[in-house]
């Protein structure tokens, strides 16, 4: 780890000003905000992140969960994962978010990790994490070692010739199904980005993972008011029974009316280069009764574009089962 200058931001403006001095907010940033530290320290120890300046934002007043005027929820960027998971409003109206958070990492890490930090959690691809290996995400143009390498855990959706790294977050999957909005304070002012647009697929620039610019600070996340009568579920499949990243996971928010799925939102984790919204599967299900036939159709639609690698072809079938079972759970079919 390189020596860095450490400072504490006393205000959002101060943090933004410090961040704006970095040429990039993406891989290779020279200024990094630290909140929980669970991703940043991990990567700094590996020399994957080498900031010259680390700005502690923990004292900023961004640690509240509040109702919004329209009945939604406003979650401060510094709200810890454990606090968010146990928040009564979240448990009541956004069960999928609570479940996703509690399925992630460990109790200790959830006490540290923040909402904003988890949005920026980096991939677990072993080649990204090892500076002795080629990785386009870490070092543009160096190549992708994961293609043809150890890729059992990696993505089958949204990949490119340049990168097949998975977004590892559970929270992000739930936020995607909940159609969250990310609120950002930047050097040029405030803006809001729907979560779907916040993350970008690797394409030819895998070092770019989201739309953040230098100086941008995620301040809070908002959720729309819960759909009346909706039920939500997070299902995570993995080798170990706990404390492990997903092989496949699914977040489902569903409203059943008159025996048919009136509205459904599905996002999946463990399979995409970003939290993956399953729009085709939603279309295949909405307006229909939930049965084996419609579920299979939805699962097929969801994974139609899947591109398996040398070791992760199983994820196509696993993701289908994950999606089908989660929809069944959310629609109380099981």
């Amino acid at each position, binding site marked *: 780890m390189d*020596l860095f200058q450490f400072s504490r931001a006393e205000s959002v403006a101060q943090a933004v000003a410090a961040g704006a001095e970095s040429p990039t907010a993406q891989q290779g940033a020279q200024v990094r905000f630290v909140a929980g530290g669970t991703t940043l320290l991990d990567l700094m120890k590996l020399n994957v992140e080498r900031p010259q300046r680390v700005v502690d934002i923990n004292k900023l007043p961004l640690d509240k969960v509040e109702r919004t005027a329209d009945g939604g929820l406003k979650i401060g960027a510094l709200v810890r994962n454990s606090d968010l998971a146990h928040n009564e409003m979240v448990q009541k109206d956004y069960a999928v978010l609570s479940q996703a958070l509690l399925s992630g990492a460990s109790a200790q890490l959830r006490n540290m990790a923040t909402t904003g930090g988890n949005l920026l959690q980096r991939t677990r691809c072993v080649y990204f994490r090892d*500076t002795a*290996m080629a990785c386009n995400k870490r070092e543009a143009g160096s190549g992708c070692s994961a293609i043809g*390498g150890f890729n059992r855990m990696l993505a089958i959706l949204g990949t490119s010739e340049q990168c097949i790294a998975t977004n590892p977050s559970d929270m992000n999957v739930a936020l995607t199904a909940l159609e969250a909005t990310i609120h950002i304070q930047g050097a040029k002012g405030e803006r809001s980005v729907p979560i779907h647009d916040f993350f970008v697929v690797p394409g030819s620039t895998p070092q770019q993972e989201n739309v953040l610019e230098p100086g941008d600070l995620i301040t809070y996340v908002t959720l729309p008011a819960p759909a009346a009568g909706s039920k939500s579920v997070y299902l995570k499949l993995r*080798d*170990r029974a*706990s404390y492990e*990243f997903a092989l496949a996971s699914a977040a489902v928010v569903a409203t059943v009316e008159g025996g048919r799925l009136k509205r459904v939102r599905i996002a999946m984790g463990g399979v995409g280069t970003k939290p993956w919204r399953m729009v085709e599967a939603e279309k295949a299900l909405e307006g229909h009764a939930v049965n084996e036939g419609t579920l299979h159709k939805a699962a097929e639609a969801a994974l139609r574009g899947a591109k398996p690698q040398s070791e992760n072809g199983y994820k196509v079938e696993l993701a289908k*089962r*994950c999606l089908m079972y989660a929809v069944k759970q959310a629609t109380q079919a099981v």
Partner: protein
Amino acid sequence: MASIEEVVPASIIGTSLARVDGPLKVSGGAMYSSDHNFPGMLYAVPVCSTIAKGTITSLDSSAAEAMPGVQAVYHRKNIGQLFRAAPPVGFSGLIDERRPPFEDDVIRYYGQYVAVVVAQTFEQAMAASAAVKVSYAGEKPDVSTTLSSDEKPKVDTTRGDADGAFASAAVKVDETYVTPVETHNPIELHASVAVWDGKGFTLYETSQAVGNHREVMAQMLGVPLENVRVISRFLGSGFGGKLWPWPHCLLAAAASRNLNRPVKLVVSRKMMFQNVGHRPLTQQRIRLGATADGMLTSLQHDSLNHTSILDDYGEGCGEATGYLYSTANLRVTSGLVRRNVGNPTAMRGPGAVPGLYALESAMDELAIKLKMDPVELRLKNEPKLDESLGIPFSSRHLKECLTVGAEKFGWSQRKAGVGAMQRDGLTLGWGVGVCSWIAARIGCEATVELKADGTARVACGTQDIGTGTYTILAQIVAEKAGIPIEKVEVVLGDTKLPAGPISGGSWVTSSVIPAVADATQKAMQTVLMAAVQGKDARFAGKKPEDLVFSGGRVQVKGGSAETSVAYAEVLRAANLGGVSGTGKSEGTFGVPPKVSQHSFGAQFVEVTWQPATARLRVNRVVTVIDAGRVLNTRAGRNQIEGAVMMGVGMAMLEHTTYDQRNGAPINSNLADYVVATHADTPQIDVTFLDYPDLSLNEYGARGIGEIGLAGIAAAITGAVYHATGVRVRELPVRIEDLLGGTARA
């Protein structure tokens, strides 16, 4: 009036005891190697090669040397002379990677140490280690996982005509089983804290064998044996990976000597996958021939394992094969295949654990072919003696392990047939496997001091690696001297102490009993001498042989109890601070055995399978162990439960993967090499049969550290087959193996 017998405490051998070192362990007071800090101590961080095969063409440490706090960067040209260890004799002089670090510029495995940075702080050393520039002429490494031997495999044991009997057998199984590279991953990182005092070393090492460690380090550092002291008071376990020294030990010691400062080197978790051994990849072909009614007529076990380029490590997969079942025709062979990997080393239950996965899987497959209950098949082929050696077993109760286990598990309710058992919407799978492990003693010395303050102290240069050795020694002294266990201080893990056994092979308990008992008896005898000598002696005028030492007290033989005197009082009367006795016991190795000494057991497993989510979990385990007398049942049960947990990991999770292109162990961390955690814990029911094996020691203890990991993987894969119809012959069982199973969603 109490008689002397009534004040003797009830025996504490074979009871359930809290560990004597427990309070230290729960309060952060137990000192592990890397907990030792010294004035002026420096921090060493190795630089690891980023190729697996080739040569170093240049090494530039100038930038690193210029960094803040850096005291030195050592490499081949400046570390100073390091030697190879002499060939081993018995259990001394053992090391698995014989080449001292930096001996040449050739790279033979990924992560091999090429330099070491020493700095004022850990942070500085870490930063500088990344700044050492090394160039290589790399070649394509061979880390292939398909093994074929160039050399003729070695025949380990043979009898009858295995080929002929197999050819003519009515029912046959011929399958190949693969166990992957497993990494020990004790949670304590390997570490060395080296303190050079100008002529000698005090080395705080993560060692399962301080005596061997000292001999090897003295040879490799080129200093007299008496100038090296090795200390390992507490070990954050090792599972075999910390039996022998590894190259980092030399780096820390050499740096300390060169800089005349204490040096701490803690191996990183990543290096734990590269530089400190692993259980090798094994590939095992099992051929079983049987009669139609299930009598084994032929058994062949041909195993290969990978080893490193320079050193030979044979896993010995056929360890238990020769004596486990009765069959007139048998052949066990083994061979080595070289790969660009660090040298493998013993991992908990070496040989038997992967070997019994293969053999017991094949037995399960045979039972299915015979349409026979797998428990019945094993009962049917129980031998009357050790057929490989032609000698009787000292104490074998495998049949009882199977029948007791079957009863406790409810095996009679089993419905054969894939997916035939359901509960709560889940498919159940039941499996069984038997286990066995060698029992032996190795040479041991111990000193016991009985002190005038009423306490006792027992010292032995063995180690407690988490198995409960501190408590065992305290129990033996307490039992022999008849004093409360709280009064016994135990000192272990130091080469200044009488030479004790290596913490390997599950041999410590059986080895220390005779030596500690002997030492206690001698100390007690000296108390009797003190009781009669001198004018102030409490029993002046008597002869020692007129007295007895019992229940911590001395009295005249046949005399009344009220005349007994506490030994502490005897010593005080004689103005003695304490008296000591040294005991010694011989090992069983090197002597032709008259009886076959092994432990046995049976493992019964239930898995649950949910096809809709491809979720497979080990739900319930019943284990019955025949390991002689278990001295402390609380710690003993813990050993078996822990081994079962490791077995869950072995069967379901663990697999070190090497990148075929660059030879790196690529999942070299605890998030990508997952071991079982709390949530993976099944319900575990452990039973000890408790038949003392008096051929080994007076209490009949055989040792239980390893046996619980044998047989469990086969029982799990058998249960997986029962639930899913998928026979996994290459561990671990993975979700992808099951998605195509017959029991689809």
